[in-house]
């Protein structure tokens, strides 16, 4: 009864919307027929309950202008009989699927339930409900696909029909509706793989299917299944690590034979966690890009290379490989042929087809790109004999991570590693034309070098922290980490607080838009000789550093008490940065400046506790040589100098005139023997 009630309410609605539709369509015949039908409905209403036939439904639904509403949206409810007839469901009653309309009255309710596939396809439906898609749909995810999203509704065709949405050729497009790049599903749902459809279409499978029309090739559903799609983390998934071999083997039945050299067949399935799964080598969706050719087991290589006496035919250097070193290296899980690519397993000497040197960038692609841009990389590209390749720094079979203290790239070992070429007299130092000298020695004595190499503080800046590991470039390159523009941020990697202060200061290009050259960290702190900023040596030297640009102001500073004391070599006096700040120097108009009107007394009070406003009026850069700027000092100085000259001139003349007379007088005294007597008495004492 409940259904009927809703039906009654729905009826009026249908009629009303009908009328609107009619006026819109404007066909007299249709109006007439509609009125008739409505009338008939009213007549038969009390009779009710009978099984509709398809023709009953089609009475209304053959009208291609027929519309209804679903969730408040107007939709066409026209059913194309031809389409239906050519679908797999031809001959099936409408109510077989639209079960909720069975025995319903005319006109039936609005917001008809979804067609029920489950009634017939119960097995498949059960799978679907457990799948990723089904679970999402049950949760009400509006992006989750329902049966008809893949299969269609009245137009459902069999999988063998090439016009079917689920024909193998159409499947990538079908899945791509939701899974191609940029779709809401790819963006908003947690899907690890990217460019799925694109990669697939370029893969050997995709190419076979889409370009060559090979419909037996693997398409999305071949691996993921059609209905019980599960994430690879689900142990029941067809693409779970444990199951992937079986999934692939559905087509590649003989794959174990093909891979026999890589994996001892049986183990593959028994201990899936120990051995690589297909996708470890053949990336999903990129199946063609095989990491290494066909499979070449390390043992096959070691058959020869385990021999200590094996030598290259050309330069006779040893080709012996200590496999234990490889196994204890960072690459213990990587097979020989993955790096030494180009082997031909079918050859007696599989390696005879290797033509290329080991290319690390086949795995370490991004680092390889960086390296190519670097000075090392550009020299290497020019075949410069001095250019270091990957192995110069990282080693070959013995590669260890940078966390391993035995690794040459362990922070503490890096200075020595770079020193191999950059120490004075070595290959890189010889061709270096810049101003830095004794780089390694200076670094070792610097605060960074001492911290790293003497105190063993591994977070201390080592060569690569400033120069980068793979993208090192000369300082005049704009991309260089040590380009003047980039130095603050390079140092700021560790000294972040100082970088923040500095970038708000007058010395920073970010703050000061000037054409003049601005100082960066290394102008004051040096590049490799960096010493503690609180050391005496630094404190004294910093004034010369400021003076390199601020010549006049620095020289007048040395005329004042502060400057004179520091000139004597003492630091317990105001030096440039004590008043101006070190990294936060600002023009005095800036309210944050240490020398701004509002702050200057406080600045003086740092040393002169009782300083007052007038005290701050002391000229800290005074000179008595500037009558315009400092008239008082100028005239005082010349007044004093005048007095001095006057006194000395008068006294000097007096003395000079006196001298000859005094000599004469002495002679007279001598005659009287008074001098002698005096001298003798003095000598005898």
């Amino acid at each position, binding site marked *: 009864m409940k259904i009927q009630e809703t039906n009654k309410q729905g009826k009026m609605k249908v009629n009303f919307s009908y009328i609107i539709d009619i006026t819109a369509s404007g066909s007299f015949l249709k109006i007439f027929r509609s009125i008739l039908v409505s009338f008939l409905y009213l007549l038969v209403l009390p009779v009710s309950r009978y099984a509709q036939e398809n023709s009953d439904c089609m009475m209304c639904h053959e009208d291609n202008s027929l519309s209804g509403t679903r969730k408040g949206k107007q939709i066409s409810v026209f059913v194309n009989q031809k389409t239906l007839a050519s679908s797999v469901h031809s001959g099936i009653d409408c109510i077989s699927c639209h079960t909720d309309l069975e025995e319903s009255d005319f006109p039936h309710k609005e917001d008809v339930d979804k067609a029920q596939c489950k009634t017939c396809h119960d097995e498949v439906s059960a799978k679907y409900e457990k799948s990723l898609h089904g679970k999402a749909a049950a949760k009400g995810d509006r992006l989750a696909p329902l049966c008809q999203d893949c299969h269609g509704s009245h137009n459902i065709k069999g999988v063998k029909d090439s016009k079917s949405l689920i024909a193998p050729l159409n499947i990538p497009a079908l899945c791509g509706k939701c899974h191609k790049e940029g779709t809401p599903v790819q963006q908003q749902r947690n899907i690890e793989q990217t460019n799925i459809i694109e990669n697939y279409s370029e893969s050997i499978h995709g190419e076979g299917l889409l370009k060559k029309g090979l419909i037996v090739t693997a398409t999305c559903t071949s691996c993921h299944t059609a209905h019980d799609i599960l994430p690879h983390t689900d142990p029941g998934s067809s693409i779970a690590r444990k199951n992937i071999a079986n999934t692939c083997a559905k087509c590649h039945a003989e794959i174990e034979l093909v891979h026999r050299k890589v994996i001892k067949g049986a183990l593959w399935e028994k201990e899936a966690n120990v051995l690589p799964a297909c996708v470890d080598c053949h990336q999903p969706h990129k199946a063609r890009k095989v990491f290494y050719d066909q499979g070449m087991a390390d043992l096959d290589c070691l058959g020869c290379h385990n021999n200590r006496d094996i030598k290259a035919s050309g330069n006779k250097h040893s080709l012996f490989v200590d496999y234990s070193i490889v196994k204890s290296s960072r690459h213990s899980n990587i097979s020989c042929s993955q790096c030494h690519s180009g082997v031909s397993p079918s050859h007696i000497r599989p390696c005879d087809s290797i033509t290329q040197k080991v290319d690390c960038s086949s795995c370490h692609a991004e680092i390889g790109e960086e390296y190519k841009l670097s000075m090392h990389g550009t020299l290497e590209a020019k075949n410069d004999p001095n250019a270091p390749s990957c192995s110069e720094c990282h080693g070959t079979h013995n590669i260890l991570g940078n966390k391993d203290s035995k690794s040459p790239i362990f922070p503490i070992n890096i200075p020595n590693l770079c020193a191999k070429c950059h120490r004075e007299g070595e290959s890189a130092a010889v061709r270096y034309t810049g101003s830095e000298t004794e780089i390694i020695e200076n670094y070792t004595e610097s605060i960074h070098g001492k911290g790293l190499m003497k105190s063993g503080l591994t977070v201390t800046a080592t060569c690569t922290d400033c120069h980068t590991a793979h993208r090192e470039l000369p300082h005049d390159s704009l991309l260089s980490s040590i380009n003047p523009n980039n130095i603050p941020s390079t140092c700021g990697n560790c000294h972040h607080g100082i970088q923040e202060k500095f970038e708000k200061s007058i010395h920073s290009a970010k703050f000061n838009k000037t054409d003049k050259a601005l100082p960066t960290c290394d102008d004051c702190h040096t590049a490799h000789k960096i010493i503690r900023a609180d050391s005496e040596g630094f404190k004294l030297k910093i004034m010369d550093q400021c003076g390199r640009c601020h010549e006049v102001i620095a020289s007048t500073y040395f005329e004042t008490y502060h400057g*004179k004391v520091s000139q004597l070599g003492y630091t317990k006096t105001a030096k440039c940065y004590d008043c101006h700040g070190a990294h936060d120097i600002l023009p005095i108009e800036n309210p944050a400046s240490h020398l701004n009107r509002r702050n200057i007394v406080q600045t003086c009070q740092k040393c002169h506790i009782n300083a*007052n406003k007038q005290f701050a009026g002391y000229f800290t850069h005074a000179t008595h040589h500037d009558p315009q700027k400092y008239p008082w*000092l100028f005239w005082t*100085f010349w007044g*004093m100098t005048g007095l001095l000259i006057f*006194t000395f001139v008068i*006294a000097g003349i007096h003395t000079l005139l006196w001298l000859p007379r005094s000599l004469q*007088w002495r002679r007279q005294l001598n005659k009287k023997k008074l001098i002698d*007597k005096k001298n003798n008495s003095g000598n005898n*004492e």
Partner: protein
Amino acid sequence: MNSEDIQKTNAGTDQQEVREDGKIVINETQIERFSRLNRILHVLMIVSFISLALTGMTLKFSYTSWAVFLSKLFGGFELAGYVHRFAAFIMFIVFITHIIDLIRIKRKEKKTLKEFLFDQDSMLFNKHDLKDFIDSLKWFLGLGERPEYGRWTYWEKFDYFAVFWGICVIGSTGLTLWFPEFFTQFMPGWVINVATIIHSDEALLATGFIFTVHFFNTHLRPEKFPMDIVIFSGRIPLEEFKLDRPKEYQELIEKGELEKHLVEAYQPIVIKTIKVFGWIALITGFSIIIWIIYAMIFVYK
């Protein structure tokens, strides 16, 4: 005693006798020119003045390596600063003691202020000094005899008042620099800069004057060469006194006060000590002059 006698006694050294207690007696009549207090004050003055000069010059000529060396010798600029201020304190004490001594003498001699200031033995310039000065110039130019100098010569009076002037100028500016926070409470900040210039240049004048002009006038002029120790011993042989200060001698005879001033000569060991001290002071003074000339002329900044 005539001069021949003196020569004889000198040759035979019979003017010197060794007493039983080991002390040496010099049989020579000497006259005391400086009281014990004045001699002590002068020694203190020398010590403080040289200390002030050395420590002060390290700052004034901080651009010379000598300054760096000396500053280190004094144990750093801070210790040098303490030495400088302590020496200044001694100088003030010397100055004040001298003033008190003058007042004491005035009371002792029961003189009015006018008498005290303007009598013949006063340090104030008077008409006689002008006459002495003009006569001296005449003597220098060969237009007259050596003037008969009295108790104080005009150049001695000049030196004396130069100290007064120096104490006032250097002392006041020095105090300003010593307590800048206090003085800027009622003076603008640039006064400190001005005080620095005055203090430094007046000190240059003082050291320059003392270590050249004063040294010449009292020690280096040929008749006294290499030094006159009278300021330390306080006494000179009567014979020498007669020739050097004929006027004063004459006056003492007239007043009949000569006997009052006659004293025994000091022990040779005392004289020797005085001379060692004198040499140290002289050499330090000359060194400072050389340093000043080097700093001002050769490496001036």
